[in-house]
């Protein structure tokens, strides 16, 4: 009997969904808008994370060595630094490499290259480029380097970068907190809009519900088909939202490249194709979030909206 009940409830829910075409269409559109808010939050947070990563990547500290510093000593220091838990990456640029890089960079400027030749010797010091895991950790790394009091170290450029590092240290947590608050606010708005739309739809069916009660249908038997229809609104809205998000992901990347005046998307660094690659890489997770939210929103809204007509 339970199976028969389930079958009848599901069938009635499906039939009602198709027969109430205009109402189902309206509910699907409203839930799609709500789910698009979820999608916008997912993309917004992905873009924010990519942006922060990009900015964090641009921040580093450089250790400049004296011209006579031995390479073995520098490489030993590099190894020590790499073992620090705060350090994400340490890159050694030898004096010869620095000279080659300089020449490559200014190969079209004969004046500069002539000036370099007049100096005669290689004027560039060896450099150790260090990237920390978090911007707040640069102070500790700089302090560690300065406290070594090594004769090899000419200069650590932490103080020049200190301003931007400190600002990032404050901005990132604030951006994360306000992003979470805005997300919660938007999610609440989406839930309220969806709930009210479904409540209106069920309001139009209140006479139908009273007839069902009159013939002795149980609350489960009355409520079930409405919940099934609610789930269908959620599934259709979810699919529609995924199509919209996919289209947005693709076209926004194309537009960013077109309007930024950049020749190739590779010039955008980590921000290149941020939406489309995020969408493709996390499609399974996005699918579950969007379709799942749609189903939950539709089912719970219908369940609650019918409840008031089942009293008495």
């Amino acid at each position, binding site marked *: *009997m339970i199976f*028969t009940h389930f079958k*009848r409830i599901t069938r009635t829910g499906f039939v*009602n969904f198709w*027969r*109430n075409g205009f109402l189902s269409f309206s509910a699907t559109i409203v839930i799609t808008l709500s789910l698009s808010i979820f999608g916008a939050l997912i993309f917004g947070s992905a873009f924010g994370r990519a942006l922060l990563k990009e900015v964090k990547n641009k921040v580093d500290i450089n250790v400049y060595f004296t011209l006579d510093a031995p390479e073995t000593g520098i490489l030993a220091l590099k190894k020590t630094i790499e073992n620090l838990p705060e350090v994400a990456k340490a890159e050694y640029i030898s004096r010869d490499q620095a000279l080659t890089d300089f020449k490559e960079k200014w190969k079209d400027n004969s004046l500069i290259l002539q000036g370099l030749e007049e100096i005669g010797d290689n004027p560039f010091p060896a450099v150790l480029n260090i990237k920390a895991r978090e911007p707040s950790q640069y102070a500790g790394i700089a302090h560690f380097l300065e406290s070594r009091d090594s004769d090899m170290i000419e200069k650590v450029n932490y103080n020049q970068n200190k301003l931007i590092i400190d600002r990032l240290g404050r901005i990132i947590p604030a951006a994360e907190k306000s992003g979470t608050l805005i997300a919660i606010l938007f999610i609440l708005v989406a839930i309220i809009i969806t709930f009210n739309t479904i409540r209106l739809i069920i309001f139009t069916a209140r*006479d*139908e519900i*009273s*007839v*069902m*009660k*009159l*013939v*002795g*249908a*149980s*609350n489960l*038997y009355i409520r079930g088909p409405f919940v099934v229809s609610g789930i269908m609104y959620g599934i259709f809205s979810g699919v529609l939202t995924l199509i919209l998000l996919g289209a947005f992901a693709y076209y926004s990347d194309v537009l960013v490249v077109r309007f930024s005046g950049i020749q190739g998307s590779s010039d955008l660094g980590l921000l290149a194709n941020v939406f489309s690659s995020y969408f493709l890489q996390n499609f399974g997770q996005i699918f579950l979030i969007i379709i799942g939210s749609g189903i939950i929103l539709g089912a719970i809204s219908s369940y609650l909206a019918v409840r008031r007509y089942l009293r*008495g």
Partner: protein
Amino acid sequence: MIYFDKVSKVYPDESIALDNVSFGVEPSEFITIVGHSGAGKTTLIKMLIAEDRPTHGTVFFESANVHKLRKSDISKLRRRIGTVFQDFRLIPNKTAYENIAFAMEASGRTDSEVSSDVPHVLELVDLGRKIWNFPHELSGGEKQRVAIARAIVTQPDIIIADEPTGNLDPINTFEIIKILQKIHKLGTTVLLTTHNRDVVEKIGGRVVTMEKGKVIRDDKHGKYVL
């Protein structure tokens, strides 16, 4: 079978819908309740199907106090009562077949019972050709016949018909009354409310007359005195 014991209903605005009403309905009886609009006929029926609660008094269905039943038992009670209303109360987005099938499904009947009984009962009310029509595709008389088919398909203990002919022309009115009499002859108790003198005279039988919420007459042989 049914007993209204000193039932009163007073609404919050202090209007009195029922005033100390007491009478009983025996099994297999055909009872007609007559009275002008606002006499309390519909309120009485709402009490019986637990759509409303009395302010004082008790309504018994067999030995059960209707207003002390749990929600699930109210659903079971309603499955034992077939109801027909003036405004038909059909589900608009279901066909004639589906409206009747819904009542059977709600009563826990199997799919094979539904598929055999619904066409049969629609034939009984002479609507075999309109089985797949939606309510908006049916005339008033046809809608009422679907409502009667829905009321009888679960073979209830009693049929309650609240002004079932109120929206119908004279021909359809007497068609509906004939169907109700046929159901009664098969042994089902029928409780009918009306303010149509011709209907009362056609039926004969017991007539309870109500006025301003009170029972003012209870005649064993149909009399319309208003």
